[in-house]
């Protein structure tokens, strides 16, 4: 849309008034809480895995040991995407709202209502969160909330060509498949409880590297939607654990010592294609790096382009904000995830 003077009829009339901005508070780049940032100025970023050696063997005297060598793993390409926000105001709108000596909108409010960088950070936060919430499928169509802009197809495949959250990720050496869907007892994708926390950690402890050797990874970061029952209950459990106590359980002693604590990352409640209140997951923060986990690959940080006047056309004021970046994951061994619905695998 472009803002014509009729769109601001109440603001620009001859009555003094308080102009109250209706915008969300400052936007934090929350995707960096669970994604590793890669600064890469190429249009396409590629990564390929490679395993180490398998376990050694014992041979009899005079015997010949078998040979071993690292195995080439899986590859993935990440192509940069163009995030943009264009603002367009007609000549009169710009003059009477911002430029006139009697301008109705002061600088402090102007900076809030025309903050295109926030728009781009919100798009990135939302897309990053959608990768988590939509990761049981192999792709989804991403649509900015409020339907400004065109739908964009997004892949949710890891380098192994399997959906991010799956019970059957292949292993580089052809060994047993591994999963990163939380299963508590016989219930896949449980809601967040203390027993589900223990189940996720037990599953994570059984993960192997590309040659079947113990990965020795521990889940220490919980991802939930801010304000959800899961998020609030997680704080209760974390507070109990931090006091050195385990939440009460019939097969534990009263006031039993706690399991390890965790940090809680709360993501904005975008809803729509973003996280439901029931979804939750955990990751090993030591595996938030260029080798494992989600990547945020940036070629151009968010840039405010110089404001220009459309002098050949209708003299609208046009402002553009741009960023070149992409999101994705190759190897989610460091993660466990739950749809929270008791059924999804």
């Amino acid at each position, binding site marked *: 849309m472009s803002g014509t003077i009729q769109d601001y009829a109440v603001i620009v009339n001859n009555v003094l008034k308080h102009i109250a901005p209706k915008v969300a508070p400052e936007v934090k780049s929350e995707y960096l809480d669970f994604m590793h940032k890669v600064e890469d100025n190429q249009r396409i970023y590629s990564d390929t895995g490679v395993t180490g050696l398998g376990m050694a063997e014992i041979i009899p005297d005079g015997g010949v040991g078998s040979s071993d060598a690292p195995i080439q793993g899986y590859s993935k390409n990440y192509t940069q995407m163009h995030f943009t926000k264009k603002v367009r105001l007609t000549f009169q709108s710009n003059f009477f709202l911002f430029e006139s000596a009697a301008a109705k909108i002061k600088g402090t409010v102007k900076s809030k209502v025309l903050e295109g960088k926030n728009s781009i950070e919100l798009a990135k936060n939302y897309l990053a969160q959608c990768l988590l919430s939509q990761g049981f499928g192999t792709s989804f169509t991403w649509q900015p909330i409020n339907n400004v802009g065109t739908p964009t197809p997004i892949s949710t495949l890891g380098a192994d060509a399997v959906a991010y959250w799956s019970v059957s990720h292949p292993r580089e050496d052809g060994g047993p498949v591994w999963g990163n869907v939380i299963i508590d007892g016989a219930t896949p994708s449980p809601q967040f*409880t203390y027993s589900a926390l223990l189940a996720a950690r037990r599953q994570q402890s059984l993960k192997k590297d590309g040659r079947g050797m113990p990965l020795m990874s521990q889940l220490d970061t919980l991802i939930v939607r801010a304000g959800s029952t899961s998020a609030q209950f997680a704080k209760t459990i974390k507070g109990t654990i931090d006091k050195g106590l385990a939440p009460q359980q019939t097969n534990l002693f009263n006031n039993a010592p706690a399991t390890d604590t965790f940090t809680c990352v709360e993501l904005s409640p975008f809803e729509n294609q973003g996280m439901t209140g029931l979804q939750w997951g955990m990751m090993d923060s030591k595996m938030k790096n260029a080798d494992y986990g989600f990547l945020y690959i940036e070629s151009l940080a968010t840039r405010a382009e110089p404001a220009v006047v459309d002098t050949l056309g209708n003299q609208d004021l046009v402002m553009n904000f741009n960023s070149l970046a992409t999101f994705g994951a190759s190897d989610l061994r460091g993660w466990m995830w739950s749809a929270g619905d008791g059924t999804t695998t």
Partner: protein
Amino acid sequence: MLQDSSSRHISSAISAPAGDTVLIARDLATPAWNYIHEIVGDLSAAGSMQIIAIDSDSTETILGTFELADGQGLTLQDITGQAGRPRFEFNPDQNAVMRTVGGTFTGTMARSIRN
């Protein structure tokens, strides 16, 4: 200390004649787990009562079977020490169903929602 958390408990009456009675229906538009913390009541004639979770694809999971004499009372409550954990739990895709044979089960239940 809590094992789980949920909304506040809501009481409602149960009147389940012979056959299937949906105690709590799934609502996939606003997905939530349904918890039943307590069931109290009796059967009007000798027979049986079952608590069953039925998925949208009609898969049945029987959570409890109780053989009751005429007028025999039954009380089912949360397990002590599992604070907040429900006696019966239904995932967002499941209906909570009471199936009775032989009589009408009349009583009350306390339920809550986890979403």
